[in-house]
């Protein structure tokens, strides 16, 4: 029995020992687990704290970055506004249009709601609203006695709220319905011309230096534009005055010209009438002189014959003069029709040579013609062209001494035939060149004083050439001879077109 009791106690002891070991192990494990959990929790706390710290850092960095970005945006928008103004300025010089180019959205982009421009009068005693934005269609009122307060401003001022408003500017803020504002003086060459007021209906945070810088830039650009606009207006006004004067003078000149044309026409008609009237009796005189000279009315003494010859000669000269006068009058009046026809240039040369050669031989003057034109024919009045050439060559003969040289060349030039009539004669003084083609002009020289002439030949030549849509000019130097050039179109205008 004792053995059983002892065995039982031993078993009980072992059970208790196992239980105790188990409990000790369990408690140890729990402690380890708890420690592990606490360590994990601690780790999580640290991770959370890290996340929070990192998040705060990120917020801080991002916020600063976004502020910088906003500042940059503001500058960019201001630059855009400036660019827009510049664009407007390049299209218009109207101050109102330049100021109107800043619209509500531009002001809002710069962080403001309202904008108004005040301009002082010339004497600085008055003030008026030049332009406004953000007030609808109603022009903001100008408070009384405000000029002193704003004309004294030397630089931009910022008023952040009504509390900080200088007493003198309160009425302005009230009339403009602004709680915060920036007043920017507008000056041209140190002259105060007005102010730009930009502001908000609510309290505005202190503008940064760059805000002020941007607004100053804007104000300067606008002032510059206004100045340019005013200068342009002055310039435009002067230009218009000048143009008006030019128009007036032109009108006067036109009237004078018309009067001259009337006089010229009257002169031509008079010359034409007189020439006609003279030609009839002259023909009779010439006829009777010829009959008398023939001896049919009785034999004449030698002296009588001599005098009749002179009558005949002078009558011929007078007839030539009258004919030339009549021709000039007719061409000028457009009464003479050019009989334009396809004319052989070689034929013209031949005809002219036939008339001129005997005279050159008699005067011992060399006469040359050179044909270098690319075309054989020209559309002209043949008789009139020959008349021009004979006239010019006769002049050449007249002014060329014995053993001298005269001649003419024909060349082609861009649809024209260029004629050159030259001589190695006395030449023409520079001062006479401009007047050479005037009617009745005769250069003052020995030859002209010796030899008679009407002063109508070159004028007639010019009229004939111009009637053919040609031009004539001359190169000459005293002692070196003269070169008369004229160009005639190969084809008539209607032929070219058609």
């Amino acid at each position: 029995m004792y053995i059983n009791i002892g065995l039982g106690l031993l078993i009980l002891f072992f059970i208790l020992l196992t239980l105790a070991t188990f409990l000790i192990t369990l408690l140890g494990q729990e402690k380890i687990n708890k420690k592990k959990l606490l360590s994990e929790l601690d780790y999580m706390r640290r991770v959370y704290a890290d996340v929070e710290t990192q998040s705060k850092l990120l917020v801080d960095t991002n916020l600063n970055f976004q502020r910088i970005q906003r500042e940059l945006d503001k500058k960019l928008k201001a630059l855009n506004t400036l660019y827009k103004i510049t664009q407007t300025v390049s299209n218009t010089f109207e101050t109102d249009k330049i100021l109107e180019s800043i619209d509500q959205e531009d002001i809002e982009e710069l962080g403001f709601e309202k904008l108004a421009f005040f301009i002082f009068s010339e004497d600085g005693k008055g003030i008026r609203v030049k332009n406004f934005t953000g007030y609808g269609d109603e022009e903001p009122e100008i408070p009384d006695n405000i000029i002193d307060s704003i004309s004294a401003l030397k630089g931009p001022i910022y008023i952040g709220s009504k509390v900080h408003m200088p007493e003198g500017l309160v009425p302005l803020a009230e009339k403009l319905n602004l709680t915060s504002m920036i007043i920017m003086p507008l000056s041209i060459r140190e002259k105060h011309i007005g102010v730009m007021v930009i502001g908000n209906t609510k309290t505005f945070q202190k503008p940064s230096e760059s805000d002020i810088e941007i607004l100053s830039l804007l104000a300067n650009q606008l002032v510059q534009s206004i100045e340019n606009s005013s200068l342009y207006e002055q310039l435009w006004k002067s230009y218009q005055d000048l143009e008006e004067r030019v128009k007036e003078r032109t009108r006067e000149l036109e009237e004078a010209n018309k009067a001259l044309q009337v006089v010229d026409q009257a002169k031509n008609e008079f010359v034409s009438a007189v020439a006609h009237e003279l030609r009839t009796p002259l023909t009779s005189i010439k006829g009777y002189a010829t009959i008398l000279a023939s001896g049919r009315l009785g034999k004449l003494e030698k002296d009588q014959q001599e005098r009749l010859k002179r009558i005949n000669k002078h009558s011929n000269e007078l007839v030539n003069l009258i004919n030339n006068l009549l021709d000039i009058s007719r061409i000028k009046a457009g009464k003479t029709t050019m009989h334009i026809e396809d004319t052989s240039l070689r034929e013209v040369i031949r005809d002219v040579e036939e008339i001129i050669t005997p005279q050159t031989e008699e005067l011992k003057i060399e006469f040359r013609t050179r044909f270098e034109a690319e075309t054989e024919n020209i559309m002209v009045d043949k008789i009139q062209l020959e008349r021009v050439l004979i006239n010019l060559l006769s002049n050449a003969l007249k002014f060329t001494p014995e053993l001298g040289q005269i001649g003419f060349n024909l060349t082609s030039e861009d649809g024209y035939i260029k004629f050159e009539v030259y001589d190695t004669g006395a030449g023409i003084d520079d001062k006479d060149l401009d007047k050479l083609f005037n009617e009745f002009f005769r250069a003052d020289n020995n030859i002209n004083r010796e030899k008679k002439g009407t002063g109508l030949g070159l004028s007639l030549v010019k009229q004939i050439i111009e009637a053919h849509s040609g031009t004539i000019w001359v190169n000459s130097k005293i002692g070196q001879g003269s070169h008369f050039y004229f160009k005639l179109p190969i084809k008539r205008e209607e032929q070219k077109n058609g």
Partner: protein
Amino acid sequence: MALKIGTGISSDTNAYFAGKNAAIKALSSLGVDVPELGIAFSHYEYPILQINDGIKATLGEKNLVIINSQANVMNNTFKKRSVVLNLLSGHSYYHAISMVKNLSENPYVAGHHLAWGLLDSLEAKTHKKESQKKLALVFGSDSFIQKTELLRGLQEVLGVRFPIVGGIVSSDSSLSPTEVSFNRQSSRDGVVGILFAGENLVIGVGSHHGWIPLGLPKKIKKAEANRVQNLDDMSPLKYYFQYLGKHLDLRKEDTDSISTIYPLGLEAEKDNYVIRFPKFFEPGGSILLDSQVAENQNLRLMMGTRKTLLEATEKALNQALEPFQKEKISPKFIILVAGIERKDILGVDINTEINLIKKKVPETTKIIGIYTRGQFAPLGGSSKLANTSRYQNGAILLAAVGVKRV
């Protein structure tokens, strides 16, 4: 004449002439075709009925829906004060229009009424072709808080997975009411919808926002309507302060822009957040959001950068164009509804966002759109069936419409 589009924009300061000029340009862009429907987006400062009269003086009596906007887009032009008009003509599609007033009384019921109105109108036009309905374009005035309720009402009738897109129109200030109109009926507390249907109509919808989650999520422990009061025993202001610290000065003007960069993201599905911008930080530390919010929802601080926003635009565009690539056609037009907050972050790059879209579609695809505070759009586009439309803020929604080759 499958489906033809004409677009016109005008920024005349006079509302009547802005409408008239936009209509003249849109008609000229449409060519010889007769328009059947006009959708106009007009800046909220323009009186909506004057715009209506200006457009109708040119168009005559055609169906015309006008929606207020904060800024408009036409092709690659971004303009705040403007009227953009999109004219539709052709026989490849049907449209039904409905408008419900007194929206704020019960937005959920208004959603039901609008949806039934659209279906009834479509039925009357098409005779049992309701199954061909493809897209609902819905715009409501910003006169109520329960925006998700309006959407719930619409989805219960039109289908939970039916693409309902559009937005809540907004203005720069809560004092300026917003308006929607259908012909000469206008409402500052209303919602207007256009249902597009047609067997061969191809629709692609893409939508993303681009804000990325930041920091640790919090559970909304206490919220009432659009007011969030407690986030894991912390006030929302404190939660903001924890991350923004010295940057968060409620007296400063740029608090608005800070909350634009760092809005809150309501967890909608795994790793997908619907953006909510705090409209106002209240003295007790609570915040007001644009729409109602439910308790026990997870919420996180989000962060937006130009890069992430532009990436989101690209993603939305790819999703919107996916059905067209399959059909090997181009969309006839794309309607863009984007959060005005995007403009605050994108700054001058707002044009980059528009050009990004313009570059990916042919010249013939017209783009019109508005910038507003709220958007109805599936989170991530309509190509995934699970994506139902949600009321979002800050998102860019692109709804592309085209016609299959027959």
